[in-house]
């Protein structure tokens, strides 16, 4: 049973980093739009980046690794959402105060300390995802906490930073990035590594997400949300380690539902890697690092990766892994083996992957006689494995060195890595780059520090609406608790609040319509995009008894463009409510054998005009 005790015994440590885009009008350090919908690409530039010495003199292991890949980065430049600042051709403009204010509201919501002065920093990143080769980032708060199931989870730090560019496409030696999203303000909320189980991690992520969505700013009658909603606007990074393992960061999980599965898999992966390490140590396994050109031996292989590579003038390198027999094929998580880990490293040099002796080599066109020759050429015996890489000479040489580095790590450690989600449903991950060290932070000298006076922060706090208050209000207004919870998590919460602040006494109808009716309409292919004041008008008509609840959906179906349009739809579609004396008359006119038949007949005819409850009351009163 994988309970708290199980994870405690493992020495499980887990922390989260939640990244959420803010809903500001402009980007963090320039005046470009922070909304990236349907902009056009107007030009491309290509750039190179390289690691520069970090604070400790040594280059950071992640940045120097990326630098060794020597890839070319191509940036798509957009008309409205990118400018010279985004393409690293102009210094940053003054910081976006709106983003600072929003970040301070979150600082308050998480009960964090705010420094008297915020210092913009540069975090070195040379994988091309920032045109500047660094991400501008600033610590806006520290030492906060949240409560989840009665346990306090420290929120160690809150950062305000620039969103990176998004990958458009990539190949062996180049990556194309879209810079439209680079520079959108992003807030990062970090917990400390005291999360005790994968399940708790999921709950913490949900709670942080809720606070981010529900903390807002009072704006007249409504509450302005601080964050963007929709796909890609929130990402969670997970840090996991177990005793004997190491800290591994899994980046960019967008589906919060698989946080727990992902962590369970990572724990499993580390357990397997530790087992493999023990076995390899017991076998006195070795990776000597040398490799041999096997192109001649494999000259007769046709087709497949090997034949194709050789026919294009490439080479095949092979290397012996002493004492590794059977280990490369060991499963370490679903669909992942030690071989696939090594292969991930090799791929960073732009090759397709590795071929190893724990696989069926026949599928690569390598027959028994070739296997014998490879084994003799590499000096492989029964206790050993070997790996092969086929590619053009430079890529092949670099890939083999990356692969052998990874194989060597299997003897001593679970390597500290940044990993990417490869399948979010299965919760599996793949190697992305070595885990960055602390030596990549330095001051953003182009930008001024930002003073936050006590008074200023107090003013921000006064305008802030907190998650707890907002949630309590929703729970009070909507007696159906399931509906209330749904409303709290819904993207339509601000609309609900706007409508109910203008029309009182019908909160449940508003919530049910926004959550259920609209979903139903959308499922049948009708997109509901109605102005919020038109919505208010529609619900006012319902509250005044002019239309029935059923008619609300019917009006929405016809996509009213304005208040007048709404009235026109009501009259043209004869949606006016029939009630009171008129309803009685209607019932009396119909003569039916039984009340049941009468109800059936009338309600099918006047479903949209008659309120069911009223109908039943009148019918019940009749003899």
């Amino acid at each position, binding site marked *: 049973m994988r309970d708290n005790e199980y994870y405690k015994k493992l020495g499980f440590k887990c922390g989260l980093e939640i990244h959420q885009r803010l809903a500001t009008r402009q980007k963090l350090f320039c005046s470009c739009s922070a909304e990236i919908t349907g902009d056009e690409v107007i030009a491309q*530039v*290509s*750039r*190179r*980046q*390289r*690691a*520069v*010495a*970090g*604070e*400790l*003199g040594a280059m950071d292991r992640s*940045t120097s690794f990326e*630098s060794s890949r020597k890839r070319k980065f191509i940036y798509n430049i957009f008309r409205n959402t990118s400018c*010279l600042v985004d*393409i*690293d*051709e*102009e*210094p940053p403009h003054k910081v976006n105060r709106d983003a600072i204010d929003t970040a301070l509201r979150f600082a308050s919501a998480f009960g964090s*300390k705010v*420094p*008297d*002065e*915020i*210092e913009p*920093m*540069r*975090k*070195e990143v*040379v994988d091309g995802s920032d*045109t*500047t*080769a*660094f991400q501008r*980032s*600033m*610590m806006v708060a*520290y030492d906060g906490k949240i409560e989840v199931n009665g346990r306090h989870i420290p929120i160690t*730090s809150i*950062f305000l930073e620039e969103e990176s560019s998004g990958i458009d496409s990539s190949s062996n030696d180049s990556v194309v990035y879209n810079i439209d999203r680079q520079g959108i303000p992003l807030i990062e909320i970090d917990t400390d590594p005291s999360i005790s189980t994968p399940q708790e991690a999921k709950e913490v992520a949900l709670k942080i997400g809720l606070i981010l969505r529900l903390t807002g700013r009072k704006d007249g009658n409504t509450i302005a949300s601080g964050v963007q909603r929709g796909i890609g606007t929130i990402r969670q990074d997970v840090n996991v380690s177990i005793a004997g393992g190491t800290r591994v960061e899994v980046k960019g999980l967008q589906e919060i539902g698989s946080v727990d599965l992902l962590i369970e898999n990572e724990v499993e992966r580390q357990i397997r890697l530790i087992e493999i390490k023990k076995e390899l140590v017991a076998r006195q396994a070795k990776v000597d690092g040398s490799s041999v050109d096997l192109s001649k031996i494999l000259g007769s292989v046709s087709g497949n990766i090997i034949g194709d590579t050789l026919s294009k003038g490439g080479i095949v390198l092979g290397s012996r892994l002493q004492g590794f027999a059977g280990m490369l094929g060991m499963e370490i998580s679903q669909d992942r083996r030690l071989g696939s880990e090594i292969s991930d490293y090799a791929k960073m040099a732009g090759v397709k992957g590795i071929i190893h002796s724990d696989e069926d080599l026949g599928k690569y066109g390598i027959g028994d006689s070739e296997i014998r020759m490879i084994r003799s050429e590499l000096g492989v015996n029964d206790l050993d494995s070997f790996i092969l890489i086929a590619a053009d000479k430079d890529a092949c040489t670099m890939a083999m060195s990356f692969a052998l580095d990874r194989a060597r790590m299997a003897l001593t450690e679970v390597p500290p890595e940044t990993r990417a989600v490869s399948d979010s449903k299965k919760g599996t991950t793949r190697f992305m780059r070595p885990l960055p060290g*602390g*030596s*990549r*932070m*330095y*001051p953003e*000298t182009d930008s*001024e*520090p930002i*003073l936050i006076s006590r008074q200023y922060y107090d003013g921000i706090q006064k305008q802030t609406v907190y998650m707890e208050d907002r949630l309590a209000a929703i729970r009070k207004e909507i007696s159906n608790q399931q509906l209330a919870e749904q409303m709290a998590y819904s993207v339509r919460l601000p609309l609900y609040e706007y409508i109910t602040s203008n029309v009182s006494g019908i909160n449940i109808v508003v919530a049910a319509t926004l959550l259920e009716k609209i979903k139903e309409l959308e499922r049948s292919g009708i997109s509901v995009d109605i102005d919020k004041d038109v919505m208010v008008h529609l619900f006012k008509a319902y509250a005044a008894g002019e239309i029935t609840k059923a008619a609300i959906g019917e009006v929405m179906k016809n996509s009213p463009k304005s208040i007048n349009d709404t009235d026109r739809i009501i009259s043209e579609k004869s949606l006016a409510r029939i009630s009171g004396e008129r309803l009685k008359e209607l019932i009396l006119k119909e003569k039916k054998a039984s009340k049941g038949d009468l109800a059936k007949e009338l309600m099918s005819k006047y479903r949209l005009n008659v309120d069911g409850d009223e109908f039943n009351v009148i019918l019940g009163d009749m003899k």
Partner: protein
Amino acid sequence: MYSNEIQAILDSLGIKPGDTIAISNGGESEEGVLMPRSDAGDNSVIVIKRKDGYNIGLRYSKDMRITKQASGTGHFEFPKAITTTNGSLNNVALLYTGGTIGSKVDYATGGVYMLTKPEELLHEVPELKEIVNIDVQNLMSIASEDMTCLEWRKIAEGVVKAFDKGARGVIITHGTDTMHYTSAALSFMLQDLNGPVVITGAQRSSDRGSSDAFLNLICSAHLAANSNIAEVGICMHKTSSDQSCIMIRGTKARKMHTSRRDAFRPINSSPIASVDRNGRIEYKSEYRKMSAHGTRTTAMTGFEERTALVKVHPNSTPEILDFYVEKGYKGIIIEGTGMGHVPSSTSKEEYSWLGRIKNTVDKGVVVGMTSQCIYGRVNPTVYRNLRLAASAGAIYCEDMLSEVAYVKLGFLLGNYKAEAAKEMLNTNIAGEITARTEFEPEFTE
């Protein structure tokens, strides 16, 4: 700089930037490395670098208790390149003068410094070792806006010395703001040049992974080592992409953008050559070639400091010329409008420059005329007002850039008699004047 109050406390505790300190205030304590206070910002805020690498600022108050936890290591030592010699490569001198290309964040203290050791810059461009044998000379470490004719002289002498020592070509790293003044000065000062003199710099400092310095240095090295150009030129990015650079004649270059990588453009001319990271050099126009029978390169380093560059504009009054005459100036370049106009037949007579120009010339001052259009050629005859200015004694400087005309006039007056200088001002001596301007579909491209 911290406020006097804070500095006094830090001094009394023996705390310097780079030391680890703890700051406690009513039970709460923050620990980190003390950072220096930049000139910007409130000097009563103490900045510390936390363990996670982030800096935060805490406002000093009397209740604060500051304690020293550990001493720092002093200034950060950047790794240095080890220069080796490869017999199959050409020898090139690199004269280091400062500027953005050599400015760096000091990681120990967080401040920005000019690198004093160019080997630190070379450490980050290991490709250079495959292209040239570089002999690094540290001439100075100053920002280009602080350059004067004293530095131009020093650089020119440095180039001569480098060639004397056997360099095939010379690379000069320089701040970008006044790079085109220096390139013009060297173009005039260096005589009998018989090798490439390539000036380069960076628009993004070399402590950033995205710096343009790397490609600029690589391309400059290829040019200095392998081109047969015997001229002074500026080698910087051709476009915003890190693909190739162009070598622009030293007298035809101008910084045309405050921040872009491709800020330097050839004006009224084509670049001499383009060059990419792999060393492929394409020659684009006529240039002076290296010769097997070349004589020793020398430098004529005189420069008349009392030379001025004056811009006319609507409502400008010519009294400024009187000021310069009174101060003993020997030469003035007037940056006129259009084809070389100055206010002439103005409704108020005191706005007209004609009389003052004549007066200035009569006093023996050499007056040259260029255009603030930047592109194109001045002409002393098309309009009546042009003829008037010319007959007042202003020398029309053809298609010479204003900045170049200024440097040229100072150079001429520093090395020749005024009469000779007058003669030479609108005669080409270092590619600064071209007799014909080829048609370009888009002339600013």
